[in-house]
């Protein structure tokens, strides 16, 4: 985890770290963010600002790794930032709870949208290990159908990744992880 607090600037619903040194450090120390215009950085020596998504940006704020400023350069209090996150990302609290849990467990957690899911979770990092898990966050009140079950199972087999459903209860602050495997009867 980086030591000194880096500065991030909130742009709409993303957080930009302008300082290149800080950008490199954040990326290196946990694959936080994405260097602007470099989808797959070869090393940690890129020359670009770092774009953090709200999930990781808010997480790093709670860890006091970054401070986030608004357009006037004024620091946004974590509580206020959380409100902004909730307003611009659906089910933020449920998803963030899962993000934090996985990060605290030492995993590298990145967006899973390419796999049609919430998170891609790496043991070491993208490019080092193949994303072993794709995680979909659901609430306990959500419904399961035959189609959704098969879709999840299909997804995991086609991308050869382990599919995990995270049942996230934001009120009870609990998460249950369920793993789906095709069973060849």
């Amino acid at each position: 985890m980086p030591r000194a607090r880096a500065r991030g600037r909130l742009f709409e619903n993303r957080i930009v770290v302008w300082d290149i040194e800080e950008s490199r450090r954040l990326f290196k120390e946990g694959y936080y963010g994405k260097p602007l215009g470099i989808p797959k950085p070869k090393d940690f020596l890129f020359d670009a600002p770092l774009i953090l998504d709200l999930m990781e940006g808010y997480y790093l704020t709670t860890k006091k790794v970054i401070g986030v400023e608004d357009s006037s350069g004024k620091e946004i209090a974590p509580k206020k930032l959380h409100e902004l996150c909730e307003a611009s990302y659906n089910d933020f609290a449920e998803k963030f709870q899962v993000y934090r849990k996985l990060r605290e467990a030492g995993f590298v957690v990145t967006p899973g949208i390419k796999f049609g899911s919430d998170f891609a979770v790496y043991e070491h990092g993208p490019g080092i290990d193949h994303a072993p898990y794709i995680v979909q966050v659901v609430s306990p009140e959500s419904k399961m159908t035959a189609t959704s079950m098969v879709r999840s199972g299909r997804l995991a087999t086609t991308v050869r990744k382990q599919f995990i459903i995270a049942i996230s209860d934001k009120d009870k602050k609990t998460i249950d992880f369920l793993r789906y495997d095709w069973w060849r009867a």
Partner: protein
Amino acid sequence: MQEEHAGGAEVRPFEGVIRDGGVKITDKERFGELEESGYGTREGEVLALRDYEALYLLYSKKLLLQGEQGDVSFEGLAELSQKKERDSWTKFVIYRDLRSRGYTVREGFGFGTDLRVYERGDYPKKPAKYVVFALDEGIEKGMDDLQKSVKEMAKMGKEAIIAVIERRGEVIYYKVSRARF
């Protein structure tokens, strides 16, 4: 797909009757054959079969069933059974599919539409390894219910399997287990 029939190939059909709303096997000397393969439960002088067990035996032509008005066919029992239980066909569909794949299948624990499934060759030496839950296409189930079922199964040392039944009856299975991070 290989069809496995009760009691091996070319056996004389078992004889059963419909009594007290269910199928009973009456020829005592043959109880053992059925019980060995995991069919039925003793009830005094008879061996009581679940409807899906009887349906499967009828389907595999291993049962001659007598009702009050004479012979009862597979179709006849299927209709009779449907009147008693809303999910009788769903249960039969899974039961048939798993039996035909060589598994021994027994009644479940009553968590929705469920069946206990023994690994091939395990019955009756070892307990059931799996519990299969039906999830019919077009039906919604709560995530919290799935969560509870998986927890319960884990406590009992069994693996939870979801049998997704597509709308014409084909079955796809998924194993659902708890993961820790």
